[in-house]
């Protein structure tokens, strides 16, 4: 139990980076970008291919991120310069990336990374050397959770730090002069152009950035899971959306910093819910996508239903005294 929750926490934090990308395209740019399923693999494949060639994992991860940025820019180009519908641009790019990803992965549908020197082994080493593992495990033992100690704390802690850094980078960017017009472009293109914003270029930049985060998440996830697979991105967009929607529903969207934090929380909670659901005897691993779809539907429907209920009750309360008065008036009229 503890081990699987711990794993869910780790992967949730990794997927949170992807969810931040999805937040950028879906929410900030108001662009339903389906490139994600492809660019996640682009990041994973690029990093895995470079790592198997013995290149530095940090460099490999950075190159994966860059590849995702370029992929996103192409989706933006299709939409702005090619005047292709947003959904279709993303789908076209997603399909194209399947072939491109296979090329990147040198025609291998799967690149194993077990036993390779990756970001994860580095993080684990870091935690061991600095004594982080020893001290945190001692703390766990002290509170009586000693029987199932995690392999390493390095991944969890360093990934959390990285995800938070990316969140803050995002928050900062969206407050800059360029970030503000980017947000305005997603909100009101006409207004944006009337204030001298090059909305085409901003859309391309925004989609590039969004897919850079997605690819970064893919590159890290490949190293975490120990492989890159050509099919690992299928349904990723829904996972990202689920994270955004759950996070926003649970933690609110008052400010940008709050929303991005909510998105990270949403990604982690989604992961934990899925992990717990899969522990139920009835479900098979293949049910994962169905569970995801149900979670998204619930996250979309439940908050609205709750609001409606509240609104109805409020109206009823307002109505009640008026009804009483009407009844009194009727009685008086009758007598």
């Amino acid at each position, binding site marked *: 139990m503890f081990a699987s929750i711990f794993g869910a926490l780790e992967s949730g934090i990794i997927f949170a980076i992807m969810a931040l990308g999805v937040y950028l395209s879906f929410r900030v740019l108001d662009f339903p970008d389906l490139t994600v399923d492809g660019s996640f693999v682009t990041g994973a494949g690029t990093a895995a291919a470079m790592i198997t060639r013995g290149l530095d994992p940090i460099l490999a991860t950075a190159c994966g991120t860059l590849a995702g940025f370029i992929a996103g820019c192409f989706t933006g180009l299709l939409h702005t310069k090619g005047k292709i519908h947003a959904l279709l641009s993303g789908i076209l790019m997603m399909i194209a990336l399947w072939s491109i990803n296979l090329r990147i992965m040198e025609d291998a549908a799967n690149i194993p990374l077990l036993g390779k020197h990756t970001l994860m082994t580095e993080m684990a080493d870091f935690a061991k050397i600095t004594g982080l593992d020893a001290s945190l495990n001692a703390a766990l033992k002290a509170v009586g959770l000693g029987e199932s100690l995690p392999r390493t704390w390095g991944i969890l802690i360093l990934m959390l730090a990285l995800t938070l850094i990316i969140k803050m980078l995002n928050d900062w960017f969206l*407050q800059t*002069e360029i970030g*503000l017009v980017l*947000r305005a472009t997603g909100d*009101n293109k006409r*207004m944006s152009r*009337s*204030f*001298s*914003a090059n909305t085409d270029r901003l859309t391309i930049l925004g989609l590039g950035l969004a897919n850079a985060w997605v690819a970064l998440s893919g590159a890290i996830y490949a190293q975490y899971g120990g492989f890159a697979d050509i099919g690992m991105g299928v349904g990723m967009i829904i996972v990202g959306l689920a994270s955004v929607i759950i996070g926003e529903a649970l933690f609110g969207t008052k400010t940008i910093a709050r929303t991005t934090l909510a998105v990270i929380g949403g990604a982690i909670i989604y992961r934990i819910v899925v992990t717990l659901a899969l522990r139920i005897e009835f479900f098979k691993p293949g049910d994962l996508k169905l569970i995801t779809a149900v979670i998204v539907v619930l996250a979309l429907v439940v908050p609205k239903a709750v609001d409606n209920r509240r609104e109805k009750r409020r109206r009823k309360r307002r109505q009640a005294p008026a009804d009483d008065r009407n009844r009194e008036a009727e009685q008086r009229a009758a007598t």
Partner: protein
Amino acid sequence: MLQLKNVHKVFNEGQPDERVALAGIDLELKSGDFVTVIGSNGAGKSTLMNVITGVLAPDAGEIWMDGKEVTRLPEFKRSARIGRVFQDPMAGTAASLTIEENLSIAFTRNKTRTLARGVTKKRRAFFRERLAELNLGLENRLTAKVGSLSGGERQALSLLMATLTYPSLLLLDEHTAALDPARAALIAEMTERIVRASRLTTLMVTHNMQQAIALGNRLVMMDAGRIVAAFDEEEKKTLTIEKLLAVFQQMRSAASDRLLLNAFPPGAGLPGQGGE
């Protein structure tokens, strides 16, 4: 300052639903001119605005600004020097951004935008000062999302944003039409004050003849894509609604219902809802 030379614009050319929106417009605005534009629905007023700002490319003719030809310049480049307020109060601001963030976008319209912070302390103080001039209390709501403002408040903010950087040209397309009479009067008064204080070269479309006569130093009347009458500073001083209607009737045997209807209840803003 602004010069239009024989500008033509046809929609759906060669098709059964062909519409000639602009049929040879010649218009020159001197620096500091405030020209009001009237004309019936479909006369081509909004098309004229869109051609000036670069939303639409003219089929023929030239557009010059500050001595340079801008006919083929993309909209976002032209708008560094053109301020605009739309008829729809929702159109001129970004609802999901705060008041100060919207103002920051307006403030940087004629600058190269960088990765510097959009809303700095210094800018915030400046925004607060300018907002206070509107007398709507918006200066105390800098971090409120613009989506939470009323239509009138949003239109006042749009006007401030459009004029914040003293653009070479200010274009107003029925910008009081969607507001209630009191708000419309307020925005009209605000417009006059701002335009006068900064001596902005302005082109304003309105369906309110009273307003068209009261504001600005020149008036032009459009019909069927042409400028059918123009009144300069001297002529405009003695202009009345009756005279204007007479001219209009001369131009067309029957004056547009719309114009007649709008001419008579004098008073401020009228609920003109022209199709954009």
